[in-house]
């Protein structure tokens, strides 16, 4: 039964991806394009050569962070839709540190700056968490409102106090994350992201605190009876989730963008939620799906140049994946379908 479960958990998202590509192909054909050619350009744009591959990794890095943020919160049964705000606040804190503490040298400045991102993100995640456990507020609404506030705040920063020159943007940070693969823009952030994913995986599935956290996510009442500090764990998961997203924002600033400007972090929060859900709320799955999303994004531009199809075709495929994956997960959990699948696997076992 266990292995069967695992199989389904992988099969559902894979099928969802394939189905989305199929629907995407139909869509492309409908608007007069050639699906095979379009997908060829898509994958060429994503894997064609080293620098293309590098771009997919660069694009995947922030998505891994926001995806992990969403996964971590959801594991404890709270919905963090505010990863975008936390991401942005993390970057804002880093800009503040980078431009204020000019006395520090390269590496130490980088570390302080990344830490400030973690703290700012965590603080931004603390707000919906504390409002949920003390006032019973809907954390989704609170975190969404905080997203808009954070984005406006960032806008205030790059047009106001931290503006540099004529364009509405901040000065570039001086401390940059190291780039280590040839000519590509791949930076040390990806290593941070992967290590973080493994740490979270270990924490959630192999430590007692992680177990308590997941227990709260599965059944609050039972956890309460077991004496787990339910509210504290919820708050904690919100803070950590925010901190992860904040670190993501800081890494994106120091590794890829270097400046704050309009559109920084745009859409990463919701994409993170989508990635977490398609990745079946597993940190490793999250990394895989984040990479898939990055492939779609990096390839989309090449496809647009090569075939003239708008990149939003790819947005639709991305959105379809989540529609199919969530519906699929619900479908296999329907009582009679679950029974059917269980029968199927027990028959197989008998045959063996």
């Amino acid at each position, binding site marked *: 039964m266990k292995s069967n479960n695992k199989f389904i958990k992988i099969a559902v998202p894979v099928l969802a991806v394939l189905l989305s590509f199929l629907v995407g192909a139909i869509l492309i054909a409908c*608007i007069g394009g050639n699906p095979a050619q379009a997908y060829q350009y898509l994958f060429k744009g994503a894997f064609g050569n080293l620098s293309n591959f590098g771009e997919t990794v660069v694009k995947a890095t922030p998505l891994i962070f926001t995806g992990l943020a969403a996964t971590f919160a959801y594991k404890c049964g709270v*919905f963090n*839709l505010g990863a975008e705000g936390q991401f942005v606040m993390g970057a804002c804190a880093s800009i503040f540190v980078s431009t204020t503490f000019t006395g520090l040298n390269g590496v130490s400045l980088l570390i302080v700056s990344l830490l400030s991102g973690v703290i700012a993100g965590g603080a931004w995640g603390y707000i919906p968490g504390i*409002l949920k456990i003390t*006032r*019973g*507020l*809907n954390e*989704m*609404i*609170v975190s*969404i*409102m*905080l*997203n*808009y*506030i954070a984005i*406006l*705040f960032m*806008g*205030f920063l790059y*047009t*106001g106090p931290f503006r540099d020159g004529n364009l509405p943007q901040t000065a570039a940070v001086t401390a940059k994350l190291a780039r280590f693969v040839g000519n590509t823009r791949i930076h040390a952030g990806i290593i941070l992201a992967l290590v973080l994913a493994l740490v979270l995986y270990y924490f959630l599935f192999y430590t007692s605190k992680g177990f308590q956290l997941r227990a709260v996510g599965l059944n609050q009442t039972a956890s309460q009876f077991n004496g787990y500090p339910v509210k504290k764990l919820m708050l904690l998961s919100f803070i950590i989730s925010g901190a992860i997203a904040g670190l993501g924002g800081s890494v994106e600033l120091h590794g890829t963008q270097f400046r704050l400007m309009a559109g920084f972090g745009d859409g990463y929060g*919701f*994409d993170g*939620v*989508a990635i977490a*859900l398609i990745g079946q709320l597993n940190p490793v799955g999250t990394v895989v799906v984040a990479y898939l999303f990055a492939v779609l994004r990096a390839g989309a531009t090449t496809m*647009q140049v090569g075939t*003239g199809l*708008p990149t*939003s*075709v790819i*947005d*639709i495929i*991305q*959105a*379809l994946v*989540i*529609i199919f994956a*969530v*519906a699929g*997960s*619900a*479908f296999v*959990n*329907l*009582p009679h379908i679950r029974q059917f699948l269980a029968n199927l696997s027990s028959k197989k076992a008998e045959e063996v």
Partner: protein
Amino acid sequence: MEVFLNWNFIQELILSTIRMATPILIVALAELYSERAGMVNIGLDGIMAFGALIGFLVSYSTGQPLLGVLAGAVGGIVINSVYAFCTIHLGAEQIVYGMAINIFAPAIASFLYKIKFGISSSLAQATLMQEMPIPVLSSIPVIGKLLFSHTPIIYLAYLLVPLSYVFFSKTKAGLNYKAVGEFPKAAETMGIPVVRTKYLACMICGALAGIGGAYLTTCYISTYSDGVVSGRGFIALSAVIFGRWMPGGVLLAALLFGFTDALQIRLQVLNSSTPYQLLAMIPYLCTLFVLAFFGIKKAGPAANGRPYFREER
């Protein structure tokens, strides 16, 4: 202070409060109808975006904003039927699926817009809906201009409030409808078609949220752009909570949020020295504070958000 206390400013403020509250009110009513049947739909933002696009496209190509609004309603129903099927029949978690709609619907809207107007388009403009002053009433001094010379959609939105109140509190159909959100099992036993009611709720929700989105592109700004909804769906969601799941309460909440939005715009016009981002935060901050002080979780329908399986005990 003189700038704020003159009559012209106050009049403009009241007028734009009524205008800004309308989309929030319509969409909050959409959510009210949905949640009263136990369907929490956080995909309002997405449905609005889709309604806004469809409304814009139709009004752009026919020159009839009213047709655009109708088309927006149809578009909303289409998108929300995906949500309805997956949550009611497949038993997907409502919150999660609402989120999926939030990602899915704007992507489609943006795609359709680009198909129609090309990849690098300048902003296409459509005609805005004309105001339709109500004959006798609009000639009353002061009040006539403030309350009775608006677009038809605004009248519709405010008319829906007393109608919804009567429906939910005074009619048998309304009480049956509410029973589905409170205790579906008991409702089913009494012969109320639970699944059908839930589908109906999703249709109403989709239609109203679509109209709310279409209002933005046919009555408020004459063009569509990605992000035109800018969180109004979520503000509407909080209006339902703040309004304690009652039509009158929802109206008050929508007016309050509309007021903050109007105030923010008026202030931007008046003092250009303050960075506009700080003023633009007002509606969101206000939503947060209002929720923090008045939002209490335990007031909604009892079976809100729970999946319903007929066969399950």
